[in-house]
């Protein structure tokens, strides 16, 4: 008997869709090779719901040969090209089997470029090309029952070709750029060094890494400037308060000292008390990048971690689809109903009642729009199971942000007291919230400061208890962190909201960058230096952005996939030709850079026992690494010590203050780097 085959993006999404669409809410569950699928009935139509598990098909090279340039691509089953994806075979096998008896198809993957493309590939390669014309598209922004049923009754009659073609182009172009540039790097090195060393770069990776390199250069070549700040402690109404000198920065020491001298021990007089009010509108609802940014500053979650948590909340039907760029609620969303459901949660009852009591709902809006999905918001569904602490935190943040957007403005008052001390002016500043407004809903996440000051009046005298002078220095620009880097990529329009966080993770995995406060590694810097010397175009933001724009035009069907790919290849070809021409020089430069890195990685500095050289050595027998003195070979020194086997070891160039031996930084993924004295077994300070 025939049926409609519905393709979901993930197993948990398939389960939700099946339960929502089955008239009795009880679809039959089947399992094959560990993959669950469902049979449901609605309006006498038989439905079979089957999950994918992300991308079941990937871009690969058509024809063999490890060479470049390669422009011939084909789509193949992911498990054929990626050993780690071996489980995807079971999904493909099951879908192919179920497709045989299906008379129509529904693509019910996430409604965006990736989702549309996942379903397209499955239809084309697992269900057969003819399935494409029999397929409809189900579009939803949350996995709640109502939304899914509505989506089922308002199917698009064809697939979303704009998104599909844009998705295919993106994957193909990224593959072509990545494979060619990486092979070019590796080939050039291999030709001079005689062996392979894994190196890579990509269309978005290169420019992103070059942002970090530029910042590193600014920091490493930074020369600070001195300046001075002055504050005074004053006694007012029996309490002590800190006053700030009217000039924030004083540029010469003599001027600063003069102020201190003239004000110390004086009595000041209040010459003015003024206050001003500032109205703060509620923040706009969350799109993915503002959620990632907020979660980073509040909880320290990296953008990729926030994305993963949000994804889980979405699959649990607690929040709407997180990969959205929208900050405006479309009228189709039943805000009132969501609020009423949230009211059932004890934690939000009072705030919701307050919102409902004010009558008409008018949420604030941000500037960004995304026709595919609304801003991230709670669906109203409350958690059925206990959430993990991080899910709990993110969920609460999303709910409170949603509630805050309905709030009235908050009003802050700032008070400035001006105090004349001899011929100088100081200020005392106070801040307080007069009307909490939306901040009441967002309370735990509000970062405003309340500074209390005593009641004062003009003409009042204040005693200056002491005057403090501080010498300060200008600081280098801060290192990027995963959050600020993501924002920078967004501002430069490179990558997409779905891919940026992953690209940053890739840079960590390739060991091009390290640390939460991102530092470029010697390896990362070498790759950037070589590329910027020999083919700077690869690092250019312009090239990446041009391609990005072209791909967006496929989405809006102003350009075809073929046109954009041909254009991308035309842009890449001269770069690769240029690379080929300079292959020898590039190879030499890379070899030299890698050789230096190795030297640096293994050499620790002077041995305090004999003055010889300490090195990190790998034992031939056990393959374990340890520290040894090179004078061991001449029999004059026998210092050696074991080292941690996990993580990256990096000589610091410093010595231990306790014993004078060199120190190392031990870097492990997702942990704070640890400084280790190589003499840790005997060093007193190491305990």
């Amino acid at each position, binding site marked *: 008997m025939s049926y409609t085959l519905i393709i979901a993006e993930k197993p948990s999404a398939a389960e939700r869709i099946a339960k929502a669409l089955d008239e009795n809410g009880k679809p039959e569950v089947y399992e094959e090779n560990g993959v669950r699928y469902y049979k449901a009935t609605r309006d006498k139509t038989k439905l079979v719901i089957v999950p994918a598990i992300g991308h079941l098909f990937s871009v690969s090279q058509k024809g063999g040969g490890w060479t470049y340039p390669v422009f011939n691509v084909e789509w193949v089953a992911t498990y054929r090209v990626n050993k780690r994806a071996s489980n995807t075979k079971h999904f493909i096998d099951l879908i192919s089997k179920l497709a045989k008896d299906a008379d129509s198809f529904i693509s019910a993957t996430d409604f965006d470029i990736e989702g549309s493309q996942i379903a397209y590939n499955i239809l084309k390669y697992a269900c057969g090309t003819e399935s494409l014309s029999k397929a409809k598209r189900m579009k939803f922004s949350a996995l709640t029952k109502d939304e899914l049923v509505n989506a089922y009754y308002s199917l698009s009659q064809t697939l979303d070709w704009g998104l599909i073609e844009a998705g295919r182009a993106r994957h193909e172009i990224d593959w072509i750029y990545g494979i060619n540039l990486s092979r070019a790097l590796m080939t050039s090195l291999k030709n001079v060094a005689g062996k392979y060393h894994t190196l890579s770069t990509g269309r978005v990776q290169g420019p992103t890494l070059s942002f970090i390199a530029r910042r590193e*250069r600014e920091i*490493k*070549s*930074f*020369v*600070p400037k*001195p300046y001075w700040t002055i504050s005074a402690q004053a006694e007012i109404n029996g309490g002590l308060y800190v006053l700030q000198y009217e000039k924030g920065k004083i*540029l*010469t020491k003599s001027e600063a000292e003069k102020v201190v001298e003239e004000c110390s021990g004086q009595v000041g007089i209040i010459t003015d008390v003024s206050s001003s009010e500032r109205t703060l509108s509620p923040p706009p609802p969350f799109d993915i990048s503002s959620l990632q940014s907020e979660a980073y500053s509040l909880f320290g979650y990296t953008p990729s971690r926030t994305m993963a948590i949000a994804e889980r909340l979405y699959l649990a039907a607690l929040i709407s689809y997180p990969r959205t760029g929208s900050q405006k609620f479309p009228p189709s969303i039943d805000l009132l109903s969501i609020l009423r459901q949230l009211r059932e949660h004890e934690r939000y009852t009072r705030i919701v009642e307050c919102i409902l009591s004010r009558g008409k709902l008018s949420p604030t809006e941000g500037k960004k729009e995304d026709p595919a999905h609304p801003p991230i918001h709670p669906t109203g569904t409350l958690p059925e199971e206990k959430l993990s602490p991080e899910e709990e935190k993110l969920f609460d943040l999303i709910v409170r942000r949603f509630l805050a957007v309905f709030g009235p403005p908050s009003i802050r008052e700032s008070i400035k007291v001006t105090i004349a001390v001899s011929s100088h002016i100081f200020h005392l500043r106070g801040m307080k919230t007069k009307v909490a407004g939306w901040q009441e809903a967002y309370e735990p996440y509000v970062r405003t400061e309340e500074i209390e000051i005593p009641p004062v009046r003009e003409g009042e005298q204040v005693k200056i208890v002491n005057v403090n002078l501080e010498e300060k220095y200008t600081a*280098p620009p801060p290192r990027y962190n995963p959050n600020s880097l993501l924002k920078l990529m967004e501002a430069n329009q490179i990558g997409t909201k779905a891919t940026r966080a992953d690209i940053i993770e890739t840079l960590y995995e390739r060991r091009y960058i390290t640390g939460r406060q991102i530092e470029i590694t010697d390896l990362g810097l070498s790759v950037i230096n070589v590329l910027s010397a020999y083919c700077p175009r690869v690092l250019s933001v312009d090239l990446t952005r041009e391609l990005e724009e072209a791909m967006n035009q496929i989405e809006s069907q102003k350009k075809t996939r073929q046109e954009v790919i041909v254009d991308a290849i035309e842009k890449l070809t001269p770069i690769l030709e240029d690379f080929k021409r300079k292959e020898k020089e590039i190879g030499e430069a890379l070899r030299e850079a890698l050789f230096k890195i190795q030297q640096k990685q293994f050499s620790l500095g002077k041995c305090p026992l004999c003055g010889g050289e300490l090195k990190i050595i790998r034992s031939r027998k056990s393959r374990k690494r340890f520290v040894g003195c090179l004078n061991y070979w001449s029999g004059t020194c026998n210092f050696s010590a074991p080292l941690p086997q996990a993580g990256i070891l990096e000589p610091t160039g410093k010595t231990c203050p306790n014993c004078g031996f060199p120190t190392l930084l031990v870097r492990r993924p997702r942990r704070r780097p640890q400084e280790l004295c190589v003499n840790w077994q005997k060093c007193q300070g190491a305990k």
Partner: protein
Amino acid sequence: MSGKCPICGERTSRNGSYCENHQLAYENLKKQYQYWKDALQISWQEYLQKIMENKNTGQWAKEVAKDLIEKQKN
């Protein structure tokens, strides 16, 4: 003529006696001296010493300051 940077051994940049990185730091050192001179009435030597000890100074700038101090000694 292309020589080697006395600090790191890299090829020297076109317009200086240091490599590109250290030359950049050297230019910054020269540029900022006027601020320190105005602020503290100090000599170039005293300035280099302060820069070398300052925690905000970048690594390359420290290395150049150290190199300049040592050159002066010899």
